[in-house]
């Protein structure tokens, strides 16, 4: 039950306030990057490589340049004159903006065309693509072959590099884990692959770059989740050509879905900026869907060997994981600097495992760079899949009910704050009630009976559980930075004389509803109605500096900053109220919206009275005005959790699969807006079943992508998506000022193993212990055929 401290009119935390941002979107009046049109605007389009690995022999610009309306063809050699042909990645690797000699993956940018019209630009790209000659080479597609002795050296540009190994990373106690395994009564082991997928937000990426020569100012409307960081990166990369940070304005307008795919800097942005800078006119670049799927950052692509040790009674005693990570031709992941494999070390999950060791090797291949989010930024999905899958494998081996085994191994409520074997301090949790609630909601015991009866009749159904622990809200400055910039976030709040407010943030919503939820946080803390608080984000000229929105970090960081800024405002408001009421500050009590005199509640001043006085009648010696800024450095991450149950029916003749039920119990601490939280969970669940059942970027041996359009890269539609059944437990974060934790990526993290576990559960009596995601009907059909179920 969610209790509200404020009235519905104020609309603070716990109210399902309808979203303020809807007003423009339901009328088609949202303003996305591609909606920006400027006088004299030019269009950019990009010629791309047909090969995964090739030397560029020659680029003949002349045919493209002869097309009327074509103003420029830009190649790597052109950018090289300004030292802009390479750029740094977020992981301190380097990435080509445009190549000067070698292409490293199919669909890589090779040259750009600037024209007066989008159709002319497309004509010119076609002409240009026919005028580039290549010498193709045999690419490395399988990461397991990247370190073979005869593998070509993919990055000879990197000084001293003699192989395709990028980095080795390990954490945990190797020796103690080795001992736990050698002494274990039971050990289970599986090879688990988390395939390469793509966020595929419905809006693709792009920008409109406008350099005004007279003022020397660059304005870029850009599909970016982190506008401030982008501004700094551009200043660092292009400072030498005269773009200094005060003359760069990044505007992140409405964003049509981000999910992490709009965190990186893509070559297209840089080329468009360079073109506008050189030509002095606005340049628009919007990629099409196939460019988006084929060239923009991928997610995941982890090949894991997962081992779990236990006693014969089922008490987990050790966890060991070895991973091979395919990063494509450069490490362009988006992780905090000190965490090359993100927060993968959350992999001990919800279980009290005394010792663990995990190691990882990243390699180069001839595939697009990335390793960014798919609604889960920092490799938590990979970790949760590993632990939740192997837990079911252990249950199967021991002949135990998977729910039972989880209850036995859960970290208990009184163990929090809990220090995990891999070093995290979990802030709060209470795992058993969430799983119990999910089991009650789905009718677990009855389903198990039904399953037994069906099995006897030769019918296939499975029940899959996932009891995940998340780790979000990056992060504390002692450990978390991106390119050296600490991962705090910010809020700047100004109260107007009439008691209304504007607040600006360093984050950037891509559909999460910040215009509503941030206003609710301020309403909660100041008592000003949420409808009277305007929220702005995404314009680096006006918003305070912040690291942006991804990894469910906005509520844990900027949301906390809003609360802290509100507290500063309240401190000043108390002084003004004391002055107005002619009492001492200590004699005043606060309730949302007003200060009143203790014991004399009729003597009070509303926040609106106080705001007016702050500009018209403030105490002598006090600064006028009522505003505050706060940069919030979280003391710890937050650890949301949940338990999901998926019920899957499988046709034993065709292997067609249908999710009959999907129950999701989430605990994200205190809830700001229940309607929005439930909406975030619905969306995350859909992005959970997507990689579990449908999505995978597939390459052939030559590095040709086989499903680079929406015709064959299958996003779930309304038909495949089940009705979501959701519920909550509430375990507040002890260190967050609002007790909130962050929620949007939890369901994407928790859902895939629930689906995979359901499918394996349906097939477990046939001796099946693991199926890699996506669990497609074809994979299951092959298993049924192999096991003789289908003749």
């Amino acid at each position, binding site marked *: 039950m969610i209790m509200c401290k404020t009235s519905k009119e104020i609309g603070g935390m716990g109210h399902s306030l*309808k*979203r303020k*941002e*809807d*007003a*423009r*979107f*339901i*009328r*088609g*009046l*949202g*303003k*996305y990057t*591609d*909606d920006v*049109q400027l006088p004299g605007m030019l269009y950019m389009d990009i010629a791309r490589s047909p090969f995964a690995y090739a030397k560029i022999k020659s680029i003949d610009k002349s045919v493209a340049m002869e097309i009327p309306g074509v103003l420029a063809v830009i190649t790597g050699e052109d950018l090289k004159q300004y030292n802009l042909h390479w750029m740094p990645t977020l992981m301190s690797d380097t990435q080509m903006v445009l190549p000067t000699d070698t292409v490293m993956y199919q669909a890589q940018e090779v040259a750009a065309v600037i024209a007066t019209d*989008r*159709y002319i630009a497309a004509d010119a790209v076609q002409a240009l693509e026919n005028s580039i000659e290549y010498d193709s080479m045999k690419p490395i597609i399988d990461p397991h072959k990247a370190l073979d002795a005869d593998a070509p050296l993919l990055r000879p540009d990197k000084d001293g590099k003699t192989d395709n190994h990028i980095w080795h990373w390990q954490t945990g106690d190797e020796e103690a884990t080795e001992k736990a395994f050698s002494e274990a009564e039971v050990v289970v082991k599986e090879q688990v692959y988390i395939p390469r997928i793509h966020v*595929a*937000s*419905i*809006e*693709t990426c792009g920008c409109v770059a406008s350099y005004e020569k007279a003022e020397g100012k660059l304005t870029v409307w850009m599909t970016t989740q982190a506008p401030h960081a982008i501004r700094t990166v551009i200043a660092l990369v292009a400072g030498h050509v005269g773009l200094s940070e005060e003359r760069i304005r990044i505007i992140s307008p*409405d*964003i*049509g*879905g*981000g*999910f992490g795919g709009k965190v990186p800097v893509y070559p297209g942005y840089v080329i468009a900026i360079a073109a506008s800078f050189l030509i002095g006119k606005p340049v628009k670049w*919007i990629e*099409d*869907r*196939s460019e988006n799927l084929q060239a923009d950052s991928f997610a995941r692509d982890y090949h894991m060997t997962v081992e779990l040790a236990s006693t014969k009674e089922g008490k987990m005693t050790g966890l060991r994981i070895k991973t091979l990570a395919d990063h494509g031709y450069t490490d362009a992941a988006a992780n905090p600097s000190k965490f090359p494999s993100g927060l993968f070390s959350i992999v001990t999950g919800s279980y009290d495992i005394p010792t663990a060791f995990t190691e990882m090797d990243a390699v180069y291949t001839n595939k697009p760079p990335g390793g960014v989010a798919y609604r889960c930024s920092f490799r938590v999905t990979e970790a949760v899949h590993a632990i939740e899958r192997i837990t079911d494998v252990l249950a199967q081996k021991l002949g135990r009910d998977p729910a039972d085994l989880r209850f036995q191994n859960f970290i208990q409520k009184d163990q929090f704050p809990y220090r995990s074997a891999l070093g995290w301090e979990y802030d709060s949790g209470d795992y058993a009630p969430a799983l119990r609630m999910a089991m009650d909601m789905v009718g677990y015991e009855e389903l198990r009976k039904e399953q037994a009866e069906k099995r006897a009749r030769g019918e296939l159904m499975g029940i899959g559980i996932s009891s995940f622990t998340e780790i979000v809200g990056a992060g504390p400055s002692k450990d978390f930075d991106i390119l050296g910039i600490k991962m705090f976030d910010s809020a700047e709040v100004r109260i107007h004389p009439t008691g209304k407010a504007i607040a600006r943030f360093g984050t950037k919503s*891509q*559909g*999460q*509803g910040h215009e509503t939820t941030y206003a609710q946080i301020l309403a909660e803390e100041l008592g000003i109605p949420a409808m009277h608080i305007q929220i702005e984000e995404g314009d680096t000229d006006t918003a305070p500096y912040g690291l942006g929105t991804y990894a469910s970090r906005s509520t844990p960081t900027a949301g906390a900053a809003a609360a802290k800024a509100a507290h500063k405002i309240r401190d000043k408001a108390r002084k003004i109220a004391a002055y107005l009421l002619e009492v001492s500050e200590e004699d005043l009590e606060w309730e949302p919206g007003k200060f009143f005199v203790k014991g004399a509640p009729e003597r009070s001043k509303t926040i609106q009275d106080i705001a007016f006085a702050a500009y018209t009648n403030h105490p002598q010696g006090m600064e006028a005005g009522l505003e505050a800024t706060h940069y919030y450095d979280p003391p710890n991450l937050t650890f949301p959790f949940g338990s999901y149950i998926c019920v899957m029916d499988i046709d034993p003749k065709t292997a067609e699969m249908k999710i009959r039920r999907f129950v999701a119990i989430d605990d994200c601490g205190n809830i700001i807006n229940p*309607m*929005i939280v*439930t*909406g*975030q*969970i*619905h*969306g*995350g*669940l*859909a*992005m959970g079943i997507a990689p579990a059942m449908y999505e995978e970027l597939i390459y052939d041996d030559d590095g040709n992508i086989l499903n680079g*359009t*929406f*015709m064959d890269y299958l*996003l779930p*539609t*309304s*038909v495949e*998506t089940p*009705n*979501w059944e959701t519920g909550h437990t509430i375990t507040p974060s002890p260190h967050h000022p609002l007790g909130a934790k962050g929620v949007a990526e939890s369901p994407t993290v928790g859902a895939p193993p629930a689906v995979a576990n359901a499918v394996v559960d349906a097939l477990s009596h046939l001796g099946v212990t693991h199926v890699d995601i996506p669990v497609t009907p074809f994979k299951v059909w092959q298993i049924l055929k192999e096991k003789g179920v289908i003749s």
Partner: protein
Amino acid sequence: MSKHSITIEINGESFTREVDSRKLLIHFLRDDLALTGTHIGCDTSSCGACTILLNGKSIKACTFFAVQANNQKIETIEGVEQGGQLHPLQEGFHQEHGLQCGFCTPGMIMRGKELLEKNPNPTEEEIRWGISGNLCRCTGYSNIIKSIQYAANKLNEKQEEAA
């Protein structure tokens, strides 16, 4: 490239323009007329972000030439609100939290409009199949279905009041 003079009635207003024969309707609407509420999400008519109504029938404007719409009637998201009154579908998406980033929303509303005109009392299953040509990456669809059900109820109430 040959030019054609075309006249199209869009949201009740007549527009006459010269267009290249190859210009797609979506670019005509967005670039030439600044009706940017209709979006582009793919190039293969798979996602439905560009859904509009042509003579009351939903089509995907990304794979339709502007010249094909000559002398016909088009309705886009910008024409759905009438006389300052939101359409029940617009209300429904707001009330039922049927949108997050808003990018697919105009296409969903246009598709929902045709769906409800043809079938004023759709079942959940009929709505699911009815909008299966429109992709949403944010909502997980449940609330979109509720939004369309909200509109169906509202439209039926209005019908009854009128009768």
